[in-house]
């Protein structure tokens, strides 16, 4: 019986020494971004896309501006408070006078997504529609309209004009 009681006490000690996990620190990204890539159409008669890159461009939306140097991909944080996001695409960032740019407007819906108690919420988006100008962009293709925490998805392709 003494062994039993000793074992009982030992088990309590072991269980009580289980490490305390600090669970009020948020280590996860809280902003969901839509990922896009550049492409061009290799055929004059059909729609055959091939990935490409831009040498010295930038995109701007909200307060964010991304310089794209030899970049084949970009990411855009969609608006969590509006149902559309406007993006300006300038293909030549060295241009200082008479800037010519394309405007792309993404229309989307958003739902709250619970991350954790420590991190709170972010938004998952569903792309509904894309409108754009045609200075340098031939078309915008939606590959996947669900913008969520899957970081391996390319949601859109900007097909550059030849």
């Amino acid at each position, binding site marked *: *019986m003494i062994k*039993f009681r*000793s074992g009982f006490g030992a088990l*309590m000690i072991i269980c009580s020494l289980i490490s*305390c996990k600090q669970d009020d620190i948020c280590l996860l990204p809280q*902003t969901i971004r839509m990922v896009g890539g550049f492409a061009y159409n290799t055929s004059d008669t059909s729609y055959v896309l091939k990935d490409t890159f831009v040498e010295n461009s930038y995109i701007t939306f*909200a307060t964010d501006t991304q310089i794209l140097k030899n970049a084949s991909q970009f990411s855009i944080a969609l608006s969590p408070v509006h149902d559309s996001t406007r993006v300006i695409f300038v293909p030549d960032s060295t241009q200082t006078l008479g800037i010519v740019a394309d405007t792309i407007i993404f229309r989307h819906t958003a739902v709250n997504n619970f991350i954790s*108690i420590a991190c*709170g919420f972010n938004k998952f988006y569903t792309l509904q529609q894309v409108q754009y100008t045609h200075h340098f962009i031939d078309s915008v293709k939606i590959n996947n309209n669900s913008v969520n925490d899957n970081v391996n998805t390319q949601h859109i392709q900007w097909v550059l004009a030849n």
Partner: protein
Amino acid sequence: MLIRNIYSGYLQISRCNLLRLILVVCSVFFVAISYAQPGIAVKDSVALVKKSKEKKHPFTWCTVGLDVSKSILWISNFNYSMAEIQLVSNWQPNVWAALELGAGKSKVDNAYMQFSSTQQFMRIGIDKVLFNAEFIGDLDNATIGVRYGLARVSRSAAQLNVVDPVWGAYTDKIAATNFGAHWLELTGGFKMQFVKRIFIGWHVRMKTFLNPKTFAVLPPNYVAGYGKSDKNTAFGYNFYICYLLAKKNARVR
């Protein structure tokens, strides 16, 4: 200055570390009294008889237990508190029936969200006794068991605050709601007599939700009886102090 540093250090003890401290102190205490009372072993050996042929009369005794570890939370001022009682009775010679009841409340109040919730729960299940009784009326034993848990959760409206590095800060709300939760548990535990009619018991538990999608929108910080509800699998423990109730003809100490 030294006193001030010690005092500020005391205030920084987390809930988990406080529980660890209490459990270690309790553990050392119980191990110490086990060795400090050799008379118990002598008494046990004297009382040792042939293997008990316990009559197959169910529910001749019952222990009513209070989960002391949760009661400490209840009287403290943490974001989570609950109270739990346990009823255990003999159902079969080597199988005990268990009913556990409790209630709790939790709140979340951080930079990202503020809401509170209350919960009531019950668990029913059985414990299989692992060892034979050493003498008639010996209820000291180790057990393994299963439980089915059921809880009613009431969650207040939640205020959400999001600081988006690109779009700035914004707020949102999620409406109040009531919902149910149920889960399965595997348990392991010990129970031993401390003094006449008073037992202490220990349970460790592994739990898994049967309806995890219910918690996808906004889970409470804790669900009483289950634990952290943003995890589909949770681990928990209980430390009970129990009082033995028995029928007159029950063969218990």
